[in-house]
């Protein structure tokens, strides 16, 4: 899997596959090129658009969760448990918008009351001017849909403002790396989703095997969510090539579509219509005490089992059945 830029990505024909973890916009741009060139692209960043008929191609696969699945799982857990009055703090780009859309959709089942959605620009380093307003709304739940450093800073500052005293903070995705970078204080008690946490190794033999191999290779360190996704994204394509006995693109695509796999997190498969990996979603909570090792950062609260009913329907995505 070579790294090349832009239009140089992949020749017509066979033998080249791409797997990238990038921001949604970059992912969609790469998809445009690979689609045109007939190159298989298995993407591992979160996007709803990549599943839609307009963007999807025969060559596009999506190993990652998408915002609809993530927010759905977290929403179903949180709205049942913490309350119905919800305020949103959202990064003003596709990822944030898609997450909020997902939360509002699942929120309908719970009759949640949307108190307001404050949008912030990407790369915001200070949320102090947004938090008093959110606090004044007096929600049961504050749903913070942003990622990376935005999320780290938002959670840290929400903690400083004492928001956690009366309000449950939820986030669609809690990334392992962000939690480590921001520290236990900032993430303490925050509930969110993820596609993988090493701690499920008690439950799945595949996870145990993956963790052990990873530990061996990296001085006893444990894989993170995105580490696992990267592995999964490559492994599925590799297995499909083996299964097809060929690197010819069309054969590999057929093999991927037929794949029922469990390589690191329990059973998964790619749905036919949109090539979305149907998989479990973990609902997790950040720990601040009793941590056994530096990777022991989350507690798994519940697992939403793989089920197509948690995905947007093929019709809604614009695919003809």
């Amino acid at each position, binding site marked *: 899997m070579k790294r090349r830029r832009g239009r140089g990505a992949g020749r017509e024909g066979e033998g080249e596959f791409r797997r990238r973890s990038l921001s949604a916009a970059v992912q969609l741009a790469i998809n445009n090129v690979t689609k045109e060139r007939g190159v298989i692209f298995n993407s591992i960043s979160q996007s709803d658009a990549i599943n839609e008929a307009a963007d999807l191609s025969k060559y596009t696969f999506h190993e990652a969760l998408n915002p609809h699945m993530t927010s759905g799982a977290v929403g179903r857990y949180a709205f049942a448990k913490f309350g119905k009055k919800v305020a949103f703090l959202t990064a*003003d780009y596709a990822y944030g918008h898609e997450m909020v859309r997902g939360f509002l959709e699942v929120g309908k089942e719970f009759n949640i009351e949307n*108190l*307001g959605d*404050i*949008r*912030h*620009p990407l*790369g*915001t*380093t*200070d949320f*102090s*001017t*947004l*938090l*008093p*307003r959110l*606090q*004044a*709304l007096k929600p049961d739940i504050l749903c913070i849909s942003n990622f990376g*450093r935005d999320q*780290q*800073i938002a959670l*840290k*500052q929400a903690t*400083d*403002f*004492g928001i956690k005293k009366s309000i449950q903070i939820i986030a669609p995705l809690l990334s392992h*790396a962000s939690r*480590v*970078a*921001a*520290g*236990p*204080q*900032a993430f303490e008690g925050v509930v969110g989703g993820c596609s993988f946490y090493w701690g499920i190794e008690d439950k799945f033999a595949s996870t145990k095997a993956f963790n052990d191999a990873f530990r061996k290779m990296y001085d006893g360190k444990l894989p993170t969510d995105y580490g696992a996704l990267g592995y999964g994204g490559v492994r599925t394509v590799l297995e499909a090539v083996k299964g097809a006995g060929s690197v010819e693109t069309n054969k590999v695509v057929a093999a991927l579509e037929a794949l029922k796999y469990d390589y690191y997190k329990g059973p998964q498969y790619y749905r036919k219509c949109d090539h979305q990996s149907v998989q479990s979603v973990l609902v997790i909570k950040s720990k601040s005490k009793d941590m056994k090792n530096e990777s022991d950062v989350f507690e798994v609260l519940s697992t939403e089992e793989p089920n197509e009913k948690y995905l947007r329907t093929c019709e809604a995505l614009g695919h003809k059945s």
Partner: protein
Amino acid sequence: MAGLSFDLIALQLFAGLALGAIYVLFAIGLSLIFGMLTVVNFAHGAFYMVGAYVGLYLISIGGNFWICLVAVPIAIGLFGLAVERVLIRPLYGRGIDYPLLLTFGLSYVMVECVRIAFGKTGYPFDTPEVLQGAVDIGVGYFPLYRLFVIGATAVVLLALWLFLEKTSFGLIIRAGARDPQIVRVLGVDVSRVWLIVFGIGTAIAGFAGLLAAPLQGVIPEMGGTILAEAFVVTVVGGMGSIGGAVLAGLLVGVVVSMTSLFAPEMAKVSIFALMAIVLIVRPQASSAAPD
């Protein structure tokens, strides 16, 4: 969304002032250096970032936040002295673009060195225990640490004011910023003054970085955003004007805060809109004389 109460607006105003405090600290160093040396210090953000990392390091080897408040500005100030002496001094008299490009490049080198030493991902920086939590300020709860930041900024400003107004060295700086030649003729070794001013400016930048660390954690790129915003502050306040930087820093904080209340998506843009308005209405603002 719920209506705007008086309390909320007052709290918002307060949040703006607290935000402005960091801008002020960052911008006065920038302004001091520009006013005296006519060096546009593009590495100011990197000094700010290194200040946060030095604090992180000191705490990791057993220091505490209070020691850092003293040690970080000293360490960054000394570093600033070395940078001026070795890198910037040879460029005096060669035009404003030479030191500008040098400091621009230096900032990249500093960020890269920190990435190599500490890694690319950020680190958490815990708020010192006694300053954790929020307190009731009458109109609502406000983080205690942010109140501390306002107080610390006020102390630095007071100290700087006393230094500039009440000491001979301060007199030299005030005069030298207006007319370096006359202070040379009156026997002052201006290169020494420039050295010290650069050291003071960078020391304050390091101090600001340390204060910012518990607000947002530390990351090698943390100096970039604030540098862009602080340039707006110095343009609005007048390049080289310390008093202007103080007022403009607070103004920018309040503008961001009030925009956040009514149109949060516009908060970031509002800073630059303010600069554009100031430049159009008051074109001489960018070159106002220092005071």
